[in-house]
């Protein structure tokens, strides 16, 4: 039982270590804090892979508060990976890299996400969501002297608090209707109550408000472009990847465990949401001038693609959703790594300033090319396999129109990614002579991410098996 919780325990210890080191280290040594955090997270990742593998039989642990199963485990790996990458990207980032509290908050929010993925009880779930969210609000507004960052933190907090309140109201209704808080008892309790499906659907929608905020689906997406733009870029990368994946982890678990009796209703609802999310995200991304805002809208669209996996309502569908998230997390981290590196030297996040990047830094331009093409869904990159599986799941479950909406949306996506690439490869700039240095931690991130994008993209077999395995425990 302790082994199941080992990563979380270690995360807590790591957070304490960071805070202690923050006090003990002299100010000129503080830059090691990020290295400690990153290597600690990587170590925890390895330990989790070795010691915390779930048993084939799923078990509820700690009095039914948590469930130690494959989906939870898979998501924990994603979170730990994203957190480690975020720490590496934060190294040398002006304003955050010498702050122990920054890294401690990052680790605590990762801890919260791990609990979100495993939570099997409404109370635990709510606590986990708040453990995740509150540090993220602080992190988004971490650059106190930067108005945009403060605005971003405040906006994130206000939206988060409100949606969280609505979600909590939904939880209270679920409890009131069923008289239970354990996710895995709720389905039976709710069914024996002979409730009208519409009542249940109403409750589900209230709960969804909170989850929709986390994954940034339409119509709960309004916060994301502003927050993404203002937050320190490593945190933007983290919010857009790990936090979104965490939202999906609870969304899928709650929907499949608590509301299976009205699955046909909510899958239609999700089909509509997915359509709106993809279309709106992609269309609004087109006119963006700022790369972070562009990636914000594109990440909204990607939430829509991933939702298709849930709409399909099958093991393969859920597996394709997990696969999609893995692909998306790795790719988006690579894209943000380039954004961070570029801003370090050029001091700009405007797409127009990326002109001449392929001459200034051919390697960096190539990474951006790979990342954006993977987001667009181009083989042999991982984004292609991910989109292929999601659309395959939709077609298999008979959602042909949704598959068409998805593929046509991926064309819109391709369009704005190509615009960025055109700027990078075609346009000239006066600063072409100024090269862009790539420090070691960033180089590690770029190499690992590009390698993973290519590897998982070409040899997706074992990874698909893994996610299929994980998806089984959800049903």
């Amino acid at each position: 039982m302790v082994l199941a919780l080992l990563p979380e325990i270690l995360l807590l210890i790591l957070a304490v270590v960071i805070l202690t080191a923050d006090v003990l280290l002299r100010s000129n040594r503080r830059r090691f804090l990020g290295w400690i955090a990153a290597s600690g997270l990587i170590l925890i990742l390895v330990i989790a892979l070795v010691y915390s593998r779930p048993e084939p039989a799923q078990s509820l642990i700690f009095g039914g508060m948590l469930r130690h199963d494959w989906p939870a485990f898979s998501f924990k790996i994603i979170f730990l990976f994203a957190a480690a990458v975020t720490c590496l990207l934060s190294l040398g980032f002006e304003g955050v890299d010498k702050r122990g509290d920054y890294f401690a908050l990052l680790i605590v929010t990762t801890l919260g996400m791990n609990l979100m993925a495993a939570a099997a009880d409404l109370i635990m779930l709510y606590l986990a969501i708040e453990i995740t969210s509150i540090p993220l609000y602080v992190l988004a507004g971490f650059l106190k002297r930067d108005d945009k960052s403060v605005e971003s933190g405040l906006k994130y907090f206000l939206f988060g608090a409100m949606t969280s309140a609505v979600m909590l109201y939904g939880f209270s209704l679920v409890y009131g209707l069923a008289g239970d808080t354990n996710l895995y008892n709720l389905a039976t309790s709710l069914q024996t109550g002979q409730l009208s499906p519409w009542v249940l659907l109403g409750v589900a929608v209230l709960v969804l408000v909170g989850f929709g905020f986390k994954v940034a689906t339409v119509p709960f997406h309004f916060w994301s472009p502003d927050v993404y733009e203002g937050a320190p870029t490593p945190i933007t990368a983290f919010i857009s990847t790990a936090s979104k994946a965490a939202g999906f982890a609870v969304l899928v678990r709650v929907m499949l465990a608590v509301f299976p009796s009205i699955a046909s209703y909510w899958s239609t609802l999700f089909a509509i949401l997915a359509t709106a999310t993809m279309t709106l995200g992609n269309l609004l991304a087109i006119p963006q001038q700022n790369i972070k805002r562009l990636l914000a809208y594109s990440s909204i669209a990607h939430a829509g693609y991933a939702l298709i996996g849930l709409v399909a309502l099958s093991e393969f569908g859920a597996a394709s959703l997990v696969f999609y998230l893995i692909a998306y997390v790795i790719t988006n981290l690579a894209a943000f790594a380039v954004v961070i590196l570029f801003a370090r030297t050029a001091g700009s996040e405007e797409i127009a300033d990326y002109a001449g990047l392929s001459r200034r830094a051919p390697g960096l331009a190539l990474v951006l090319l790979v990342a954006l093409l993977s987001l667009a869904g181009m083989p042999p990159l991982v984004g292609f396999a991910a989109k292929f599986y999601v659309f395959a799941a939709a077609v298999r479950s008979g959602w042909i129109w949704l598959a068409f909406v998805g593929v046509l949306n991926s064309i819109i996506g391709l369009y704005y990614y190509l615009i960025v690439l055109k700027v990078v490869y075609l346009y000239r700039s006066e600063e072409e002579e100024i090269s862009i240095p790539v420090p070691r931690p960033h180089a590690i991130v770029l190499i690992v991410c590009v390698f993973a994008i290519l590897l998982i993209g070409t040899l997706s077999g074992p990874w698909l098996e893994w996610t299929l395995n994980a998806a089984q425990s959800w049903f």
Partner: protein
Amino acid sequence: MTFPILTVIVFTPMAAGLLLFLFPSERKREIRIAALATATFSLVLSIWAYFSYDQAMNGYQFVENITWIPALGISYHVGVDGMNLPLVLLTGVVMFTGVLISWNIEDRPREFFAFLFILATGVFGVFVSLDLFQLFFFYEIAVFPMFLLIVIWGWEVTREYAAMKLTLYLFIGSVIALVGGLAMYFTAGLNSFDLIALEGAGFSIAFQRFWFPFVFFGFAVLGGIFPVHNWSPDGHVAAPTAVSMFHAGVLMKLGAFAALRVGIMLMPEGVKFWSPLILGLATVNVVYGALIAMVQTDFKYVIGFSSVSHMGLVMLGFATLNREGLTGAGLQMFSHGVMTALFFAVVGMVYDRAHTRDIPKLGGFSKVMPLVAVAFIVGGLVSMGMPGFSGFIAEFPIFMGLWQRQPIVALIAALGIVITAAYIMRVVGRVFFGKMPEEFVGHIPPITVLDKVALVMLSGILILVGVYPGVMAPLVESGVEAVLTLVGGV
């Protein structure tokens, strides 16, 4: 284990393309030599594969089948038969000549050749695919580098517009076909993406009639079928010479071939139902494309629209669904590929020296570059379908097949040939003969040795196939056999 020749053919360009990035970008000479070595290697291998294919045995040869993604029954499955082997050879030829023609590219040659080679891997991969997933995988690899190649090295005036238009058109087509492919996979219920397995899936007639247009027309976008041909002339014109050669010579065949391989061969009932529409649209391609080519004043647009016109003949051949028509279509894919590569090479050489492609401003070029003029005339004779050139042995069977199927269509489409003769004559007369304008006299440098090699090689192939059809026609016929057993012959 035998030598995995097809795998080597497919992956050599990509591996070389990635290795090119190891060169420092300013070592242009070394980069060019490495590129030429790669292209030569690919050409030699594809010639070897072409001539070591055993026609007596027929069927798919050099087959390799490796499990790729077991959960979905996806495998890496390659093989060649009479239908795709000529196209593999074509790709080898165009790749080789394309590198020769691009020798003088000064702007980032490393990136240029790398993207061109990644494109080549995609093209080879599609042609030899025997697995549907793999086919899509390589199809998209083949399409994308085109965007960068056109946008970076293309003609300044239209490159941004044309590259975006081309990429979006082709991707819309391919993703629509992809949904159709997924529908086939799940309906067949064989848990296999293997094309040969899917051939025997026995889809219901209603299913085939519903899904055929998605798959066929999705791919046919890349084949340049009317009314979605629009991307192609713009793309051809905006692209740098070698890319135009690749684009018109090989990529458009990719669309036609995939439409045949996935659309027609997997859903024979679908094609029987929809063939009148295909006949109609393809006839428009032939006649309308030729008419538009007739009125163009831009030399490259003439060739661009002539491609639209000639690809219509390929589609017509498909739609006949009989032995003659399909054989003609198979030969036409090869013949048109070489011919149009030759045309674009010529246009590129003229433009590089005259710095204009406006036909009324040109003239008398046969005096300064006689070999180029001869090559263009050879290409022109091929495109008119003159006996003794490969165009004749390709177009004649198409019309024979068409006559059996729909004499009216054959008559209308034959008009296209007449118009072709007219616009070719016009270009030959205006550009290569007549009086050379004052400003060019003494300012036209001769073409390089590498250019000559490319021109001689391309024209040589066109004449060889025309004079001695035995080198290709029986092979294509053996490939058509497989299609006919599926379609059942109409």
